[in-house]
């Protein structure tokens, strides 16, 4: 390798980069068992370890009205006992294999995940199939996990960050949307869930045609298929169709929501609107736009609120990607006394990125960052398996990871301006603050953002 000169090197002897070395996202293969179950395998031979994910078509958007939270509860209950092993035995058997299993439901799917050393992979997958195929859902554990979720909700009221996130999503969507309720359900809906709801949900959603087994790591596709066949081959059942919900906003005009938390020493601020679905042609330009606005440390929002004004430890923006339109949110936590000026600066940055093209420097910073960190994101078997789960969950093309960097490089300043104008909609943005109302209500009102509603930490209007 020989170092090349470049104009950038002129500034104070700054080194310029060597030619980039090639990178390829790990090759993967798709196989399908006769029962409809899909197997996706990415052989990665770096260390003797592999990650296994069972992705189940059983997201939080599936379920019954008034029983929201059943998807999460069912996922967690998979690990609380099978027809062969009770919960304690199950945990011990996994842990003796040097592994532990996580099961959780997001909006669009349930993910059951483990990482094991190569020598333990075969027994670990066998045990995983037992978890997926013959859960016992013991009544006692149903009650215990329901109580745990209720306690979570209770604790959330004293945790301003989580409270702000959850309440902001709640006020964003129309009440009939599943998105208006917490992913894990509300106090009322969780209380109402019975063991029959769980078994009903399981029988409806957990079918081989709706399960993808993803393995990344020290394994070959043939080995993986053989293991899948041995452990899941004789599982049968009808395929479950995808679930839908509304992703319509609650309001098309601006409104300010203040959650009164008298002991708060900072204000948690959220500003945003309903975004757009993950599998959408604007995805790449929106990711670049978000990087410039609030995705990077050197983003406009963070440099303004943190480095210029010292209002906060950090300020960010993000799109919450889902199959349907998830939220777009700018979020920060600021000192109570500067809540209103901080909100004004955040709004100013949202307006500004919709008014003018970003500079060439900003565009190149965002695209070179996004392209460069790509291989860094996929160093571990965990991350590779997770990326494949995303691919399956959102039905992205198989070459998505191979063409990602090209797509990023192709984004122009015009594209960024267009997606900012399309997907950031100041006229219908909602603002939420969790903080000390006595200190922040008046200053926030002077912003003239929109009509204000004040809530307590349980979400009741006061």
């Amino acid at each position, binding site marked *: 390798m020989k170092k090349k000169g470049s104009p950038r090197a002129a500034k104070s002897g700054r080194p310029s*980069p060597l030619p980039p070395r090639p990178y390829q996202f790990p090759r993967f293969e798709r196989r399908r068992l006769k029962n409809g179950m899909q197997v996706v395998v990415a052989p990665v031979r770096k260390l003797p370890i592999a990650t296994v994910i069972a992705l189940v078509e059983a997201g939080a958007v599936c379920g019954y009205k008034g029983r929201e939270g059943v998807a999460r509860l069912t996922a967690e209950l998979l690990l609380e006992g099978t027809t062969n092993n009770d919960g304690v035995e199950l945990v011990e058997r996994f842990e003796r294999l040097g592994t532990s299993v996580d099961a959780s439901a997001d909006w669009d799917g349930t993910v059951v995940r483990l990482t094991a050393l190569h020598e333990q992979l075969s027994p670990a997958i066998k045990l995983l199939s037992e978890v997926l195929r013959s859960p016992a859902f013991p009544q006692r554990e149903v009650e215990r996990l329901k109580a745990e979720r209720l306690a979570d909700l209770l604790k959330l009221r004293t945790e301003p960050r989580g409270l702000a996130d959850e309440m902001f999503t709640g006020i964003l969507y129309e009440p009939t949307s599943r998105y208006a309720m917490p992913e894990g359900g509300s106090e009322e809906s969780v209380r109402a869930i019975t063991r029959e709801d769980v078994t009903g949900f399981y029988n409806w959603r957990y079918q081989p045609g709706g399960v993808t087994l993803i393995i990344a790591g020290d394994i070959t596709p043939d080995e993986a298929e053989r293991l899948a066949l041995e452990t899941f081959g004789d599982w049968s059942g009808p395929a479950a169709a995808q679930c839908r919900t509304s992703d319509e906003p609650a309001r098309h005009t601006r409104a300010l929501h203040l959650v009164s938390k008298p002991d708060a020493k900072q204000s948690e601020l959220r500003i945003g609107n309903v975004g757009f679905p993950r599998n959408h042609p604007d995805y790449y330009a929106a990711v670049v736009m978000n990087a410039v606005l609030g995705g990077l440390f*050197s983003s406009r929002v963070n440099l303004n609120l943190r480095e210029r004004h010292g209002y906060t430890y950090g300020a960010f923006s993000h799109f919450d990607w889902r199959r349907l339109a998830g939220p777009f949110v700018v979020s920060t936590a600021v000192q109570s006394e500067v809540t209103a000026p901080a909100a004004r600066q955040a709004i100013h940055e949202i307006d500004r990125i919709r008014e003018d093209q970003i500079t060439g420097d900003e565009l190149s910073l965002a695209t070179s960052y996004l392209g460069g960190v790509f291989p*860094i994101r996929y160093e571990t078997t965990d991350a590779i398996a997770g990326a494949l789960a995303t691919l399956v969950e959102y039905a992205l093309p198989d070459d998505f990871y191979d063409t990602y960097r090209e797509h990023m490089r192709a984004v122009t300043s015009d594209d960024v301006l267009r997606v900012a104008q399309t997907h950031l909609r100041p006229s219908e943005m909602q603002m939420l603050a969790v903080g000390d109302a006595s200190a922040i209500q008046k200053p926030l009102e002077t912003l003239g953002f929109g009509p204000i509603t004040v809530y307590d930490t349980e979400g009741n209007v006061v």
Partner: protein
Amino acid sequence: MRIPIDTFRLPNGLFVTLSEDHTAPIVAVNLWYHVGSANERPGRTGFAHLFEHMLFQGSADVGSNEHFELIQRAGGTLNGSTWLERTNYFETVPSNQLELVLWLEANRMGKLLPAMTQQKLDTQRDVVKNERRWSMDNQPYGTWWERLPMLCFPPEHPFHHSLIGSMEDLDAASLEDVRLFFQTFYTPENAVLTVTGDFDPEQARRWVERYFAPIANGNGRPALPDAAMPRIFGAWKREVVPDNVMLPRLFLSFLSPVFGSEPFYPASVCAAILGMKKGSRLYKSLVRERQVAAEAQAFTYDLTRGSDLLVIDVTGRPGISGEQLEQEVAREVDVLFASGVTEDEVARAVTLIQTEYTRALQSAGERADRLSMFATYFSDPALINSQVRRYRSVTADAVNAFISDRLGESNRASLLYVPRTGTMRAHRSGEFSGARL
């Protein structure tokens, strides 16, 4: 699995570790400075961490916040962190950008002071105060990591005081403090540099020499503060903190053998038996069977001098008082103290630790950080390759010897958070019967 290691030392004292891995075109650069909150002088708590923020404010040839921009433009990730005994700075970048990162790190190690201004210090002081509010003051239980060392180490001990610092001490920090701290602690011989991943070792070495060798030697390696501690507390220490929380949470600590020492490994295995994952004793008993706790874990602080801490962290479920929670946890420890552990429990813990270790070492940044750690604390990065073996050689007898020695009543310190009067009642929490973190 063996991590390859090559080391050398520059004439100015900088210790360098190179570890190649060409499976991806990625390279990680990691610097540990052997200075942390333990080195702060009275009246300047929080300064080591505030200083870490200043290192991102530019140097002679780098503008304010330009370090972040240059690394991100190169397609890399970066950060820094401050701990009681060290401060680290790290970047992972595409491998063709290695030279830039070395240049940036050398520029701030050698020429930080010309870029320091009162205005930058004032802004970062505000940012750090907001970090304090965000991570501690406005978080339920957020002050635990300030209060726990205060409870466990005596007032004059270097681990006693707050790492994030008091608002008053942050206010008092001056540009003169920045200059003194830099000249004393940010010297080549008080630092180690590690590079892992995809690089040409000869070229990397040439770059390291070109950029770091001209940096002047400091005034000798600064002495480490006296950290001596007794083997046990001598009596059960207790602090109860009424806070704006819904559920009680107990941090029960024990003085334990320092990180990396021979007796550390049985102590670490004991922590895993008590509180690593759902098959651990505390989880099985308190969360699952007795249903008095919402969450339970145990860990070591990994301090290398004076004494380490083994900490049990248990959150109660609704309806359980702080007092009950402490009794329930103490009973589990008493059972362990009376009967010890089995070989089977040791095997579970060691197997889990081994998987976690292998899993972590997949990342170039993690490898670099651990190599820097072993180089800083023990002048021997190759220790990274003997950790699994050391864990595997731990026996039940060794764990039981640790338990008899350290888990008795005269070596316990309880930091107990309880809901402020009124908090619970206002939310009708009594009717719930379970919880989880």
